[in-house]
């Protein structure tokens, strides 16, 4: 009865709002209040971060998956494989949606909408079915990349436990106090750098969702500030990317071989990276005959004409230089905002 009394005014109010919005037949209620000046926007300065806006997505962490028995280990050929069942987790954990919505809401309030993980998974399923219907050809690499690919991952893990009660206590209704802990980490998907963290442990309360929601709201200003600092750093020092140069199967050169310019291929590539990164920022991590791997390489964000300059463009420039100067045929396999991959096929 009480619930009904509440529902009726809410429905009535909603109907009133909807009716008033749609009262003007010239416009749709939802778009009536919208405004914008495209000309002013086009004439304003170029915003590199807006041109290639990073996708941020909340994804459950492994610990949480395990708590819901959605993370299993399989042994095959003497090796352990961790299997993560995200779809099952989203069905099993009724708190997940509410906690994730709180985080999304906080970002939305600051005009930065997050991509929704659950919806992305559904969209990927739909896309797969549509691709089958359209008869699109998909190779193994395409299939591997047909996944949720946020540029910044907000990894959410939470756990609950109860205080141990004394065995001598005669209060059998006492289950012990509930302790709630959670961690929210913002990770750069390409460099694995932790951009911001929010953590809380031993929060007391009977409602896990409510306790986490409140704690997230409290910690969000600092968390968002850290992410903003990360974006500002990109705008100042360039995008932080990883660069991987690898040789394909059957390639007729190795990185330690001497190039036509006298240096080894590895030397030539390192010199190129030194001069084509912002203030020569890079760090070598692997140097073998078959692979060169660099992290913390900083690249510019814009071309002279204000068009964006990303990892694909950077790789394309390197590819052209390798072809024109050393006669190497390569393929550009750059992905997303921060991953350079160039495959050397050899001198052909």
């Amino acid at each position, binding site marked *: 009865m009480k619930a009904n009394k509440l529902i009726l005014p809410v429905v009535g109010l909603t109907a009133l709002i909807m009716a008033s919005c749609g009262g003007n037949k010239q416009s749709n209620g939802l778009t009536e209040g919208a405004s914008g000046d495209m000309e002013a926007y086009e*004439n304003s300065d170029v*915003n*590199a971060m807006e041109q290639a806006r990073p996708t941020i997505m909340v994804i459950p962490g492994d610990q949480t998956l395990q708590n819901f028995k959605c993370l299993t280990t399989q042994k095959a050929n003497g090796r352990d494989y961790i299997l993560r069942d995200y779809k099952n987790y989203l069905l099993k954990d009724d708190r997940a949606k509410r906690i994730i919505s709180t985080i999304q809401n906080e970002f939305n309030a600051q*005009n*930065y909408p997050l991509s929704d993980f659950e919806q992305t998974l559904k969209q990927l399923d739909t896309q797969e079915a549509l691709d089958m219907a359209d008869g699109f050809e998909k190779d193994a690499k395409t299939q591997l990349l047909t996944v949720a690919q946020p540029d910044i991952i907000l990894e959410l893990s939470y756990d609950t436990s109860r205080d141990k009660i004394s065995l001598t206590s005669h209060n059998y209704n006492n289950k012990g106090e509930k302790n709630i802990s959670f961690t929210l980490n913002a990770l750069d998907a390409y460099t694995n750098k932790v951009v911001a963290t929010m953590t809380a442990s031993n929060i007391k309360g009977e409602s896990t969702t409510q306790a986490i929601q409140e704690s997230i709201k409290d910690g969000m200003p600092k968390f*968002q500030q850290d992410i*903003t600092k990360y974006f*500002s750093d990109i705008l100042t020092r360039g995008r932080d990317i990883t660069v991987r140069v690898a040789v394909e199967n059957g390639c007729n050169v190795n990185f330690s071989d001497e190039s036509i310019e006298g240096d080894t291929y590895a030397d030539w590539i390192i010199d190129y990276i030194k001069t084509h990164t912002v203030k020569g920022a890079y760090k070598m991590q692997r140097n073998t005959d078959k692979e060169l791997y660099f992290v913390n390489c900083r690249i510019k964000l814009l071309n002279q004409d*204000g068009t964006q300059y990303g990892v694909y463009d950077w790789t394309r420039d390197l590819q052209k230089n390798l072809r024109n100067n050393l006669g190497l045929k390569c393929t550009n396999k750059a992905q997303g905002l921060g991953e350079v991959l160039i495959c050397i096929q050899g001198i052909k």
Partner: protein
Amino acid sequence: MAFALSSCGEKTNKKFNPVDRTGKLSIEERDAAIAAKKAELEGLNLDTLLYSHGVKFSIVQPKVQGEDITQDISDRISMKLLQMACQNGISGLGENPDFVFGTEIAQTGRAATGTAPQKMTVQYQLTFKVMNTATGDVYATATQDVVGVGNSFVEANQNFVKEIKNTPEIQKMLQTASERIIDWYNKNVQTVKNQIETAAGKGDYDLALAIASSVPQQATVAFQYASSKLDALTKGLMHKKAADMLGEMTAAVASAGDDFDPSIGAYFKLIPTDSPEHAKAQELYNKYAQQCKARRDALEAKAERDEQAAREFEKFKMMQEHEKELAEIEADKIKSKYASQASAKAAAAKAAANRKSGGLFGSIGDAISGTFDRVFKVADVAGALATDKLGLGQYVEKAEFGDFE
């Protein structure tokens, strides 16, 4: 606090002023460049390698390997191999006991990604081989590393088959093998003669026919000899199979009743007149012919009063008038069935003798024998290919989906 993403970019003092990409080629130069590119791409076309030295290969079905390479996956790989072999010339499953085309499959890796949704990958190395089952010689090999991706390991294994590519390297390997095989026949005419004559002398017409029918046309001398022996060997085989054919004929008569069935005439035609089964076959055929005649007379009488009976009578009459031609077609099918069985039997016998060599070679007999049900399907597909001018893609697709069963 304003989330500072938008404001972050306000200090660039750079306006968006993109420059269009402009080509340096004139219209004529562009047309010429497109034509050159097209020619370059056509140069890679597998069709250029087709039908150059095609030798008929038998396809060996890959071994089933637990939950990874299931029977279904093995069947699908066989069809891929058939497609490759067909591009090199003529092929079939279990057609030729001497020269086989197969692949050994070794799992070289498997992994699970850390993405969402998680993807599973399996990696296999396929070693393609063309071998002589009689001698154990390997004529040519090629390898291919293949990765399969899916939402589970089972799906990844299913998808890896799609990644097996018919590459110019494989066609080159088949071509090389064909050339070497032809060379082998050219240099071993006497060996082939001895094999056929010895087998026929022992009454092993299965083996003799299998060896004779496997000689490639390009090995002129050996082929002429083998062709000259085919009729006699087929007759010998039919003698051996007369009892089987009489059994089939009896079953067909019982099933047909007074309906027309061209396979009855075909069996009767194939049972040699000098075989002990011929008299019984003659009696059976006469009885069947009488039944058909009675049916025809009844239909003819009825046709005067009944329009539907008139149509049925016309159809029956037409089929009887073409009985000879229809029986010929059926006889060819029956002969090819026995010839294929002979090939498989010969292959199985050879493989059993060489089983000690293990691997692909050791299991060839089983693999070829195991595919026999499909020989006829492929023969039918080949017929459809010839008559309906189906493209190779449709051909394999039909074979895969069992349209010809």
